[in-house]
């Protein structure tokens, strides 16, 4: 019996974005990453080209995180208060392909660091590692709008990924990224229409929309993950079938969400049938990541070193071309 593989015929592909810049490209990175460019649904190599694999970033904070689970102490305890050393460890020992620097300390409730302090942290991290950087603000609009222009300027030439821009607050970020040639993250609250609309609005500021990474907003496993999962699937299918306004790679703060879950943190003493806490936490994070990767996640921001190893292996396995 002859078997003819069923392939969708797509009219469009996902934008391809390179992040980071080496010396000959005007930056100081020793490596760059390229994501996107898919012409098929995630890992369906028989259907179309999947030129780039998803990449893994580790999260680094500019202040010592007080609420991270105690199990992180053994990996980061010695570098919590030194973002540069922290980032270096993430890259050299734990295999991070990007660093996601979260400027949590700029939050008025967490130290209210000045734009100058933020710039100093950025420079220290840029000096410590050669991988491309994602830089996130503190999430409070007013403060973020004070630091984005300074960060964008200080990172000139480095081709950073800056975030996040939201529907209510994207203009300062977009202008800063436009002026200094960075890429940006556009975040929407699990709503495909807002995601699309935001990309269009950013484009209206003359920003090259193929330089947008979408954050459709994810939740952790067990905490609403399926909503983000389905939005990502819809966005990707929409992108391939011709909707250019959603044809962007996607990023997800997997570690941030997964390690808020009770299941990642509760001790085995309290929940004897749930197994050992650290292993469970790692699996909570890895399962959140692996499921979203199957929906099209392009940048996976993680926390635990072991999760990095697991997710990278999963990605490598999925990237082996399978054809008929």
């Amino acid at each position: 019996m002859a078997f003819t593989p069923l392939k969708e015929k797509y009219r469009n592909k996902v934008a391809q974005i390179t992040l980071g810049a080496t010396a000959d490209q005007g930056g100081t990175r020793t490596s760059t990453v390229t994501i996107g460019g898919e012409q098929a649904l995630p890992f369906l190599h028989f259907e179309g080209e999947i030129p780039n694999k998803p990449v893994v970033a580790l999260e680094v904070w500019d202040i010592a995180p007080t609420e991270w689970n105690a199990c992180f102490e053994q990996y980061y305890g010695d570098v919590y208060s030194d973002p540069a050393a922290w980032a270096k460890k993430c890259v050299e020992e734990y295999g991070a392909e990007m660093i996601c620097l979260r400027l949590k300390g700029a939050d008025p409730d967490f130290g209210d660091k000045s734009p100058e302090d933020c710039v100093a942290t950025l420079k220290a991290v840029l000096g410590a590692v050669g991988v491309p950087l994602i830089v996130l603000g503190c999430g409070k609009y007013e403060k973020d709008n004070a630091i984005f222009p300074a960060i964008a300027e200080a990172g000139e030439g480095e081709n950073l990924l800056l975030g996040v821009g939201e529907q209510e607050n994207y203009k300062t970020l977009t202008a800063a990224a436009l002026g200094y040639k960075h890429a940006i993250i556009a975040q929407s609250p699990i709503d495909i229409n807002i995601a699309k609309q935001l990309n269009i609005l950013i484009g209206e500021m003359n920003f090259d929309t193929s330089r947008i990474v979408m954050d459709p907003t994810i939740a952790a496993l067990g905490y609403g993950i399926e909503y983000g999962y389905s939005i990502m699937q819809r966005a990707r299918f929409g992108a391939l079938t011709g909707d250019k306004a959603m044809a962007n790679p996607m990023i997800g703060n997997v570690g941030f969400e997964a390690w808020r879950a009770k299941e990642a943190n509760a001790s085995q003493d309290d929940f004897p049938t749930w197994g050992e806490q650290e292993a469970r936490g790692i699996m909570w994070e890895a399962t959140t990541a692996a499921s979203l990767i199957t929906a099209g996640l392009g940048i996976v921001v993680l926390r635990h070193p072991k999760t990095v190893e697991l997710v990278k292996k999963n990605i490598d396995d999925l990237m082996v071309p399978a054809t008929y």
Partner: protein
Amino acid sequence: MGLTGLQIFKLLPKTNCKECGVATCMAFAMALANAKASLDQCPYVSDEAKEQLDAAAAPPIKKVTLGAGDFTRTMGDETELFRHDKKFFNETVIAIMVEDTEDVAAKAEAFDKKVYERVGLTFYTDALAIVNASGDAGKFKAAVEAAMGKTDRVLVLCSEDADAMAAALEVAADRKPLICSATADNFDKMVELASSKGCPLAVKGANLEETVEMATKAFAAGAKELVLDSGSRQVSQTVADLTQIRRQALKRTKGFGFPTMAVVTAEGDMDQIVEAVSYMSNYAGLIALKADDDALLLPLLSWRQNLYTDPQKPIAVEPGLKEVGEVTPDSPVYTTTNFSLTYYIVEGEVEASKMPSYILAVDTDGISVLTGFAAGKFTGETIAAAIKETGLEDKVNHKNIVIPGGVAVISGKLEDASGWKVLVGPREASGIHKFVRENFK
């Protein structure tokens, strides 16, 4: 029925004899297409046409049942490519592998205890897969027998040696285990075992094409409940095969309309779970893996639960005032939403705090705290209204209410609208225990 009126009309006698009760064959065909008539009303329809119409009416993916008695699992019977289009129905069966060279009785006993509770739901590992690693028929049969004595869950019998399978089925056939697998080498014997014993059968070819050919033959030979194993043991090929099977089945390509299985091959226990997630997200009907640590299975089973929830309607609990434990007028009052996930998380924590309490579940149409807040359904006003409606003021002798930390900003509005004093609780419900110790004891 999957056919249009016109397609059905082509299969009818076209004599317009009216015996079916309507004026023309065309009218009858339209009635059939709209499920307003049944085929046996026409006495003249040919057997061939009947078969074609039956096939079109059958679900695109056959429903296969594993196990017998109280613990059974259904595979297949799916209709969608994407969960957002409607919903996925039959949750992936998780089969934990044990080899017949191990202490099967002890493993089966431990396996049978695997029951996980989270957010008001109970998760099971569904099946124990006994692998004939010894290559010995007697050992295999003894292992299967030992497992049967320890667990009532589904059994998967893994041997490609038809004699070993026959031996095991002497004791296990009544449990309707999945026979794993018919291959090119043992095909006739395995198919005969499956059909004579009435057990479901996995069919494994060298590749997808061969698997489907074998399944078609097995079905014709009388093994009706089939599961497809494309034979791939490489992750991206397996994902591709699972996807092809689902797509072809929904398009009703012959031989593809059966549920699927995938075998996890990674070495490390954690790697196995991650690999299983890739298969689960890509339509696997059954996944066999070795990892059996609780800390690893809980996340995998949680993903299954999430993937198979109904995307059209959030699961909600009845809004209103709930009592946790033996409440008194002094008991603390918490408020949250009626999204079942949110509610059960909070209820679990309140219960664990061992302090009898009231929980006011506000009607947010089943959405979470922050979503409800953003949508204007969990606000100072809606909570104040719920306090009134539920008669809370007559039940307790205080006016203190604990709100989730994530919506601290509504405190003022809530106090103004209700006259109650607001206590801002922790952001995550898991902090309730500590909060109780610090505030109520």
